[in-house]
């Protein structure tokens, strides 16, 4: 799929912008703090209604404005859809995202902070995997919301304690196990889909042979039935009551990434971790294309810095697999194909 044109009003440092990007590669250059990442964020917001940088919508509006509007046209082989999104300020000061999306629109975004998927806390790896699962299986996001609601209520029962706490946990345990295993199942499938792709992509990017192994580490092992999670909750009941929190379940799972048999969190160099993070994002392209019938838009924020020139060429070759790519870079790139754009102070010009 491609973004045919996009129009912004009061989005971050853009007062107004109307832009028709190239249907293939778009290289966005310019000094720091001029709005390169903001533009990527706006493209992502058009496609998904969310920001890949923040969950605080209040950060997005141009300072002092009461409404943000992002409009655009999305193309794929069998048609064109116009998408209108807006952020509006409510009476209580909170911001609400408005507007309907397009069922096949997907964005895969990479940013410098993605290296934390490898060297950060397990929660970041779960978030990463949930993002992939949500792009592959649209019901994942709703199940995740439901799971968090159940978890909060279950923890609340555990914290309150009391003689009948064990009895009161019953109905929450049952839902926790059912929705929890639903999440685990989709995360496992997402891991398997990434595994197939990353074992091909990472060696391509690195330009040398490597073995990458992704494994989903679940608190109930290989079990796939809600009954297994339910039983695990019962086994840990006493400790959970003592600690006042739920200690087994998908909110405690992790993904192990192994590079040539060694844990990449510990043994990978910074360069390797960065390249692995990029490879993890690129590994989403094919599974999403298969699931939605069209290639997602690739948003790469400063993806080439800190990379060797030969690796850089490999990355540029690999991203040709996507239909439309947006790539920010501080200095101009020696590439001929696609559109080149210079960004300066919330404005954009062909370069």
């Amino acid at each position, binding site marked *: 799929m491609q973004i045919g044109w996009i129009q912004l009003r009061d989005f971050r440092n853009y007062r107004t912008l109307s832009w028709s990007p190239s249907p293939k590669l778009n290289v966005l250059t310019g000094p720091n703090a001029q709005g390169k990442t903001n533009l990527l964020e706006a493209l992502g917001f058009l496609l998904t209604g969310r920001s890949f940088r923040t969950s605080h919508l209040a950060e997005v509006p141009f300072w002092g404005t009461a409404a943000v509007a992002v409009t655009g046209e999305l193309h794929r082989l069998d048609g064109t859809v116009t998408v209108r999104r807006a952020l509006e300020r409510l*009476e*209580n000061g909170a911001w609400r995202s408005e507007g309907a999306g397009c069922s096949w629109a997907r964005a895969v975004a990479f940013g410098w902070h993605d290296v934390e998927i490898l060297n950060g806390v397990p929660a970041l790896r779960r978030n990463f995997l949930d993002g992939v699962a949500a792009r592959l299986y*649209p*019901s994942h996001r*709703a*199940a995740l919301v*439901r799971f968090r*609601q*159940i978890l*909060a*209520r*279950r923890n*609340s*029962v555990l914290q*309150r304690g009391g003689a*009948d706490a064990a009895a*009161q946990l*019953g*109905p*929450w345990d*049952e*839902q926790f196990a059912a929705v929890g295993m639903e999440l685990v199942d989709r995360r496992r499938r997402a891991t398997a889909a990434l595994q197939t792709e990353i074992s091909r992509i990472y060696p391509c990017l690195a330009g040398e042979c490597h073995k990458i192994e992704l494994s989903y580490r679940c608190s109930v092992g290989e079990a796939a039935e809600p009954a297994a999670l339910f039983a695990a909750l019962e086994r840990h009941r006493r400790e959970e009551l003592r600690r006042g929190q739920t200690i087994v379940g998908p909110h405690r799972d992790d993904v192990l990434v192994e590079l040539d048999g060694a844990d990449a969190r510990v043994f990978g160099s910074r360069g390797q971790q960065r390249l692995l993070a990029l490879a993890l994002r690129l590994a989403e392209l094919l599974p999403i294309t298969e699931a939605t019938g069209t290639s997602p838009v690739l948003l790469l924020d400063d993806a080439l810095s800190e990379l060797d020139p030969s690796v850089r060429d490999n990355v540029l070759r690999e991203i040709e697999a996507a239909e439309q790519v947006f790539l920010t870079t501080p200095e101009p790139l020696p590439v001929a194909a696609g559109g080149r754009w210079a960004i300066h102070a919330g404005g954009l010009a062909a370069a």
Partner: protein
Amino acid sequence: MAHYPEPVARLIEALQRLPGIGPKTAQRLTFFLLKRPAEEVRELSEALVAVKDRIVYCQTCFNVTDEDPCRICRDPGRDARLICVVEEPNDLLAMERTGEFRGRYHVLLGALSPLDGIGPEDLKVRELLARLDAGAGTAEVILATNPNVEGEATALYLAKLLRPLGVKVTRIARGLPVGGDLEYADQVTLSKALEGRREIS
């Protein structure tokens, strides 16, 4: 709001406590009322007081009523062997509007909600058990709590409690709205509808 005369500020305060009403709406309502004839405003205030004075909970089903037991519990034409359990009186009214259900009701006056500190003892659960115990020959209890996490937990809790009593316990189905399009159904509803599919006879 210091610059409002005291009675105005007090009304704005009071209105703001209502669900779904923010400070701006409360101001708008207050100034609207200020412009209306005194008689109309008095009627409103009397209606507010009357609701509190004359409305009681039916001691059988805990629906709101102006006479106890309520009309539904007294109606001999309704099947006493069928009890539909709902969270709030509003839910009962919604069920009644269908005109399909000819049994009786039991209103829990809430749902299990640990975040608000609402447990089974805060709901009319004991009263439901007492009703079943009273030997009215209940054949089926329909759990019609909301399909959110609280309503689901309440239904699961009640099912566990009622099953040993040898009464048939059912849960209302979740699925697609009639007249809707599959294409526009959200994923969760659609998968629940698929899960609860039925054979066409």
